[in-house]
Structure formats: C-alpha cells, structure tokens
C-alpha cells in the first residue's frame, strides 16, 4: 500500500505508522522531521513551508514506487505538511512496514534522503529579526 499526502494541517504520527503496519509486517521503520528551535544558533520563531503541489505529489509517488521496487516492503506512507509550522511541529512523516526490518530501514532512509533532494517543497525560516529561504548545502 502506498499512501502519499501533502497536508495543510497537523500530521498524525500514530496513524501513519499504524497504516504502514499490517499483520504480515514484522517491523515498521519510520522517520519524523520536526521544526527545530535554532538554526546556526539563531532562534527560530516559525517556519513557512511552500510547495509546488502537482509536481511534489508526482515526485513523492516516484520515491514510493522506487522504494517498493527496490526493497521487499509491504507499505509506505509519506505525509508532508505545508503552511505555517511552529517549533516542535512535525513537518514530515515517513513510515515503512516490511516483513524484515532491514528492508524497512533502508527504504525509509532512502525516502527521506531523496525527498530532501527532489521534492519541490521549500521552507522559509522566520527569526526574531528576519527571515530566510533555506538553501541546504548552499
């Protein structure tokens, strides 16, 4: 089962992990990305996530399809939140259920690593005295 969503509301960690897990799964690996309180020592007030939704959904679907082709996994759930997020809010959840845990871990890690490179979502960090579009590895 593949479940991909871009949502403008809080993500539900427990239900994502539950949906990735079925009676044929021995284990579910998951990753949640949360809004950190500081970047390079500067206090983050909030984050604004923007996305190019039609393309982002396509790129997420490619990641899920490639994960299913490459590892023996039963289910993959990828939910990404957009809009205004506060410190501690969950921005992304990836959960992968598989009969064997190595496949679940590998696919989960592949999915988050690739998402951060290919999926057209951008975040702007808002500090007390300014804001900046995040450009990783700049």
């Amino acid at each position, binding site marked *: 089962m593949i479940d991909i969503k871009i949502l403008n509301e809080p993500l539900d960690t427990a239900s994502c992990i539950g949906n990735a897990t079925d009676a044929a799964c021995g284990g579910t690996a998951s990753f949640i*990305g949360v809004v950190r309180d500081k970047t390079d020592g500067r206090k983050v007030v909030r984050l604004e*996530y*923007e*996305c*190019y939704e*039609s*393309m*982002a959904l*396509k790129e997420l679907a490619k990641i899920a399809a490639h994960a299913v082709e490459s590892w023996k996994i039963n289910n993959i759930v990828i939910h*990404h939140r957009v809009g205004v997020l506060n410190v501690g809010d969950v*921005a*992304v959840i990836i959960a992968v259920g598989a009969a064997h845990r190595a496949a679940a871990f590998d696919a989960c890690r592949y999915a*988050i690593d690739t*998402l*951060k*490179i*290919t*999926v*057209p*979502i*951008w*975040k*702007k960090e808002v500090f007390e005295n300014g804001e900046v*579009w*995040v*450009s*990783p*590895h*700049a």
Partner: protein
Amino acid sequence: MDINILAFGIVKEFFGGPSIALELQGRLTVAGLKEKLEATYPDLKRLRTYMVAVNDEYAEDELVIRPEDEIAIIPPVSGG
C-alpha cells in the same frame, strides 16, 4: 505568444511575485530560457543551482518549450 512561468521559494522574490509572463518567440530550449531569465533577473545566478520543471517534471537543458507547457523555476528544495 506569452508563456507563464511559475516561481517558488526565493525565486518569487527575484520575480517580484509568484509568476511572470514571457513572450515565446520561435524555438526556445530550457537552456535558452535560463539565459533569458538570467539576463532579466541576474539574482538567479546567485543561486547554488536551480532547475526548470516542464509539466511537473525536471527538464533537461535541450528540451524545447511548447506554448502549452507549464513551466516552473525550482530553486534548491528544502522540504522534510
């Protein structure tokens, strides 16, 4: 004929809004589009890299743009 070019992230700031219109004259490749845009919006060259998406797919430099295509400028992504 005008084509519409979508901007995201910091590129919205370069363009001064979420999209610009560009006159499509004759044959234009993605590489040609980039050159044109960089001439008008030199801030684009400040980016570490950026991609052009055509119809929701990352496009190669050689791709020829058609009037009906949906074009978007994709600065380095930062999701997750």
